[in-house]
């Protein structure tokens, strides 16, 4: 008899627990209640890592949970994003991601994830690109450069980081818009790209704003692929001022796995937007040559969809 009561009690307890868990899951679980893993898909010490470390102390404070940084490096970020797409959608795994990487990689080949599987929480930083020559170069203006390229198709070399990358796309878009032909020379990263450029081994680069800020006294920016002139380079025009509709940048953000509940995304979004709009964080980014931005979940999703359209059109016929 005694055991019967015990069994009944246990069963009741068990069922009520199950029932309660069911209802709570249907609504909202408290989040976050344990440590969060922030995955970095590039080498330690790289810019993505530095951004994660910039976020880390603030996240600890805002979310009141420990945030740890984990590396999943390989395939130009693809390995990490593939891992993200397969992770549990519980908000305890987030990863840094880059646009246009997550759009272009799946367009090029099977990489184990699809662009739609990278659910953006925030885009917090923009790194605009600019067509740049050395300060000692004979090309004083964009027009001189383009005129030379028109007369000598394929003779001028433009360096960038990797093919099927933002740098490559910017060069292709410039060719399309200007009618000139260049030779695009890819490098394994921005460091070797800048080295070869400073040594005068390539004629021009699609440079990133942070590199250009660092080597400001050695370079001449012919045109920025931005909407407005870039701070600190007020003498250099934008492509738009030159009647070339080219805006191109590498954006950094943070994403979660597909099917992550919206309330978790919102919670993370609020935290990251709060960090991205902190005056000290913005000032830091600006001094390093980045553009601080704060695009939330919906805005980022729309932006990625828009860019996907542009790149799809551009890469048609690019693959063999």
């Amino acid at each position, binding site marked *: 008899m005694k055991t019967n009561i015990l069994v009944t009690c246990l069963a009741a307890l068990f069922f009520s627990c199950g029932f309660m868990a069911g209802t709570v899951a249907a609504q909202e679980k408290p989040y976050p209640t344990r440590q969060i893993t922030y995955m970095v898909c590039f080498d330690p010490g790289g810019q993505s890592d530095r951004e994660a470390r910039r976020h880390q102390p603030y996240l600890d404070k805002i979310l009141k949970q420990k945030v740890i940084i984990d590396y999943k490096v*390989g*395939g130009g970020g693809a390995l990490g994003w593939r891992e993200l797409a397969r992770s549990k959608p519980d908000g305890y795994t987030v990863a840094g991601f880059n646009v246009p990487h997550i759009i272009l990689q799946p367009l090029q*080949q099977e990489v184990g994830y699809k662009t739609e599987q990278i659910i953006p929480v925030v885009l917090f930083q923009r790194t605009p690109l600019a067509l740049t020559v050395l300060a000692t170069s004979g090309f004083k203006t964009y027009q001189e450069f383009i005129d030379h390229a028109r007369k000598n198709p394929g003779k001028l070399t433009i360096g960038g980081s990797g093919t099927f990358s933002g740098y490559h796309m910017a060069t292709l878009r410039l060719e399309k818009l200007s009618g000139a032909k260049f030779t695009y020379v890819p490098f394994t990263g921005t460091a070797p790209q800048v*080295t070869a450029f400073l040594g005068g081994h*390539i004629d021009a680069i699609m440079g990133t704003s942070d590199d250009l800020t660092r080597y400001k006294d050695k370079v001449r920016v012919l045109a920025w692929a931005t909407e407005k002139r870039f701070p600190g380079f007020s003498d250099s025009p934008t492509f738009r001022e030159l009647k070339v509709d080219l805006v191109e940048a590498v954006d950094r953000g943070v994403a979660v796995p597909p099917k992550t509940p919206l309330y978790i995304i919102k919670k993370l979004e609020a935290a990251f937007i709060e960090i991205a709009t902190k005056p000290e964080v913005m000032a830091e980014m600006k001094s390093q040559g980045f553009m601080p931005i704060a695009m939330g979940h919906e805005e980022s999703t729309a932006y990625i969809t828009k860019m996907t359209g542009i790149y799809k059109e551009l890469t048609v016929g690019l693959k063999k």
Partner: protein
Amino acid sequence: MLFSWDYLLQGFATACTLQNLMWATIGCLVGTLIGVLPGIGPSSGIAILLPLTTVLPPTSAIIMMAAIYYGAMYGGSTTAIVVNIPGEASSVPTALDGYAMARQGRAGPALAISAISSFVAGTLSLVGLTFFAPVLANFALAFGPPEYFALMFMGLSLVISLSGRALLKGIISMALGLTASLIGQNPLTGASRLTFGSIEMMAGINFISVIIGLFAISEILINVEHSVKLMYDTKVRDWMPKWADVRQCIGAMLRSTGIGFFLGLLPGCAPAVTTFVAYDVERRVSKHPERFGKGAIEGVAAPEGANNATTSGGFVPLFAFGLPTGPALAVLLGGLMMYGLQPGPMLFKQNPQFVWAVIASMYIGNVILLVLNLPLVGMWARIALIPFPILGPLIILFSVIGAFSIRFMLFDVWVALIFGGIGYLMRKLGFPIAPMVLATVLAQMLETSLQQSLLISQGSPLIFFTRPIAAVFMVLALASIFRGVWVQVRNRGPEVPLEDEE
């Protein structure tokens, strides 16, 4: 960024504060340890300690990280000499003669000379860094894709001398190495190659796991087969090198300093490349090249000096332009930037105390390492006295940990194990292993620079001969290839296989 005694002395003052001395010593200790453990290289070592940057002041943190980097170069030779297991690519040439010396009971002198040579080359190249950094910085910029290709091509031509009499086997071994490096993504275009649709393989074959497999795992397999009780059974002849040994190596130390330092200025010429070059040069200038591979003490001094000189050389473009020459310095650069220090010409102007403190600390670090390492020689040399049934599994354990720690991927462990099997077969069949290692180390630079050069020249290979620096390297490479083949054809010249054919 010009040199001034004031700044250097101030730097020494900063570096000599109790706190900074402590961090330099910790860095040296950690570095030595990282170097000794197979597979765990300086880049992972520094990366693991990066979070410390949030607690330490910048000067102390960078002093410690730099110490880990050059400290690892001291330690890297240990396992290469004592048990024929180079922990990093840069210690592969050290193993060739170092292990031969150990088998003759001279592990002690080999270890000691590697520490002494590291110290001499490390210190001399620091003098280069101290006084000539601004002048030399431009050297890195003189190298564009065609120059890199020519340099890598020359590096590859060392296969001829590394394979000795077994030239055909050496070339096959090189070809296998190059093929293995193709696995993964094209470094420039990202296109997948030889991945057989596996996403895991897209990450590519990392050459550290290849080295762990080829040397550590296959060495163990061979020993298991022979059911040995000890790695080698010889009486220890002497613990310390004789004065004559040291004198014999002075030339090697100076030459390797020069080679290591200048090649170290170039991005991409990680110590792995320079040690091979230094070893080869030493063998060429030697009056008795036949002694190499059989325990020539200069064959230990040269690569060990070169890799330390390379580390100092690498700081020139790092400080002057913010350009890292290898993965370890890239992580270090990340550390600098986390502090908001922008390397480049401005760094010397805006933060001279910091730059000179780090440089000064490196002089001190080299002394610490010498003091630390010489007394340890006896201890390391005794590793080989551990009974093999204990030592063997330990080596496998550290190898697996090392392979995993490269990128924290189980895939790399599998690569190491598979190459362990390949290495075992190669040893059984008398294929030299060094050419394969050299090929995997050079492959990526060779490929990317070839692709870039031909893009720049619009497909004309003449670009390698019309630019002076490239032309010099190409001529040297071709000359060494023709000479090697000629010696081979003329049959059994003075060249001898460099590795034990067991």
